């Protein structure tokens, strides 16, 4: 990959040399020669923009392509899926289906009668169950304990997971960049103050704090239950911006000392312009990588909260609360006999988180040519 970079610089060097060696007096011959050379260089060397170079390196790794494909699939599934279902079948995540089926229960018991002989006692009862339907053509993954279509709920669960994770990571990046940027650029006591705040926030235990906040939110009646998860994710931003802040600060500390900043300094531009035009754009590659790795973590946070029943509230679907059906404390039946209720949700979580780490890894390698051949 480094070849491209060398080629690029070679081409520039050649052009400038050609220009130097072509004074006006030397006439037509030299100009033609130079043109010939320019054409040849254009033929032999191809200049690629940095963005395309990154894209090329990114797509060279097989894992990143796999990751990207999974993400595209999950996005289509959870954003286009509900629309299609609504248009064709006309129902959503909270539609209850009553699919009647016969349930046969056979119990036996052995006992010894008064006559000393052994008896086997059979009790057979037939009842009609309308929930927990097995997978069928109408309900691809069956229905759950409340008679809700699992396949459709997976789509809605994905939609809320993805929406929340992108929102949170966006806020986290903004907050982290601003505070880390201020700390790294100004240094001194500002840096000290911000970094101590970062230290304090980094020591907060994340999950327990979110659970406390969830209890606090539940006690505020003005907040409807469906909105609680958005507030919680807002708080998650407040807890987790510290990683981004450290990253941006570290980058800025090294960038500040480089020559191009000295050049920017001498032009006498405004401080805000120095920060936002010259420094922050240089941290963007690292930010993109850490964002794509962080997305998976937020999906895990959201699903854990939903699993505990303090995330997305019941009639609405969430991947975490779908897996909570299999909790053996509420009976082993679902864990043992209805994998269609919890397995797909778990697989989707793992796939999505994995895909984000594949893409994050691929991007890291693509942005940093030194790390790979």
């Amino acid at each position, binding site marked *: 990959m480094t070849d491209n970079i060398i080629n690029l610089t070679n081409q520039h060097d050649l052009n400038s040399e050609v220009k130097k060696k072509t004074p006006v007096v030397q006439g037509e011959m030299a100009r033609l020669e130079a043109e010939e050379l320019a054409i040849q260089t254009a033929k032999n060397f191809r200049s690629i923009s940095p963005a395309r170079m990154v894209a090329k390196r990114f797509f060279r790794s097989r*894992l990143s392509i796999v990751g990207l494909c999974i993400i595209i699939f999950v996005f289509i599934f959870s954003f286009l899926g509900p629309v299609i279902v609504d248009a064709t079948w006309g129902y959503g995540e909270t539609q209850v289906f009553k699919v009647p089926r016969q349930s046969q229960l056979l119990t036996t018991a052995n006992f010894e009668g008064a006559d000393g002989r052994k008896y086997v006692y059979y009790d057979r009862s037939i009842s009609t169950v309308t929930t927990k339907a097995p997978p069928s053509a109408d309900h691809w993954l069956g229905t759950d304990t409340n008679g809700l279509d699992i396949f459709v709920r997976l789509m809605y669960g994905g939609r809320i997971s993805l929406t929340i994770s992108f929102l949170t990571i966006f806020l986290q990046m903004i907050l982290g960049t601003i505070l880390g940027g201020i700390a790294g650029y100004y240094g001194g006591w500002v840096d000290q103050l911000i970094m*101590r*705040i970062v*230290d*304090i926030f*980094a*020591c*907060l*235990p994340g*999950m*327990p*704090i979110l*659970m*406390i*906040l969830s*209890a*606090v939110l*539940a*006690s505020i009646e003005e907040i409807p239950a469906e909105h609680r998860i958005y507030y919680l994710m807002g708080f998650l931003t407040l807890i987790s911006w510290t990683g981004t802040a450290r990253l941006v600060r570290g980058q800025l500390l090294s960038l500040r000392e480089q020559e191009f900043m000295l050049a920017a300094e001498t032009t006498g531009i405004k401080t805000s312009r120095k920060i936002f035009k010259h420094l922050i754009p240089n941290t963007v590659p690292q930010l993109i990588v850490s964002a794509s790795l962080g997305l*998976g973590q937020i999906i*895990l946070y959201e*699903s*854990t909260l939903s*699993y*505990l029943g*303090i995330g997305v509230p019941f009639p609405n679907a969430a991947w*975490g609360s779908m*897996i*909570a059906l*299999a*909790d*053996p*404390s509420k009976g*082993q039946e679902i*864990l*043992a006999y209805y*994998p269609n209720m*919890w397995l797909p949700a*778990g697989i989707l*979580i*793992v796939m999505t*988180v*994995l895909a984000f*780490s*594949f893409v994050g*890894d691929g991007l890291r390698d693509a942005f940093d040519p030194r790390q790979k051949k």
Partner: protein
Amino acid sequence: MVKYILKRLGLAIIILLGVSLLIYMLTMAMPADYIDNRTAAAVQSGQMTPEDVLRLKELYGLADKSLPGILKGYASWFSNALQGDLGFSFLYGRPVTQVIKEYVWISFFISLIAYVIEIIIAIPMGIRAAVNQYSGYDYTVSVFSMMATALPSFFLAALLMNFFSINLGWFPLQGLTTATKIFHPSDKWGIFLDKAWHLVLPIITLTLLSIGGLMRYTRTNMLEVMNSDYIRTARAKGLPEKKVINKHAFRNTFIPLVTTLSGMLPGLFSGAMITETVFSIPGIGSMALRATLQGDIPFVMGYNMFLAILTVIGYLISDLMYAVVDPRVQISK
């Protein structure tokens, strides 16, 4: 060195002060439902008056929810905490410190075994992956470690329980002891084996959850070392590859590993909330989860503070280890 340690300690104390104030304010914002729920029946039947309830709340420092009231409460909580008194748990009816002391050991035991297994498996695999970079083995290890970090604990637990306890019947589903078996109190070995048998699946869960991170960390550090100049020198002077890896590369990879691993030690006491709850193991994590969901404010406060102290100690240890292990690091400040 002494100066460096003192400086670090001072910082740790400042951080802990900030963290405790934050946690205190957050927990105080929690609704005091527990007392209300408990006293609702008594108030209804006229055994208690609303004033009694208020007095009870005052006793626990939960009555005044204004900012000065909270700050005052924090000051008294803090001076008690310094003397080792974290308050009285509503839910468990005992002092918080006593509850923590009693249940922390089972959590520590599980985490410690998971930690040891993790080290034994992850480090050799990470090193082998780094030595054979871009090979099939490397890809397998990378994908496996990423998958392990992508698994939510409750899903992994459900998978393991479904496969090992329900389908194969090898391990019990939940709990710490077999309820149907009665052991003689002197049969220590039998009791121990029974408990160990119950802890296999939780330990596997915890190991798998954290193994991926360590594997990747080892691999990254080993790769960095393998690309350094002294490895080239070692190869150039004709040392066998085995010696280059075991003697020259591995020992340098050890520096970051030791600092991180020793920093993880205090965290072994913190308990695993979800895993312990799913497997119904009476560890500190599941106790804390129950307390948080039911609004047991003193316990929640005490537990979170305990976690924060563990985290700070962890950072402190890994900072100090970094200076101790790596002779190139010189502490000037």
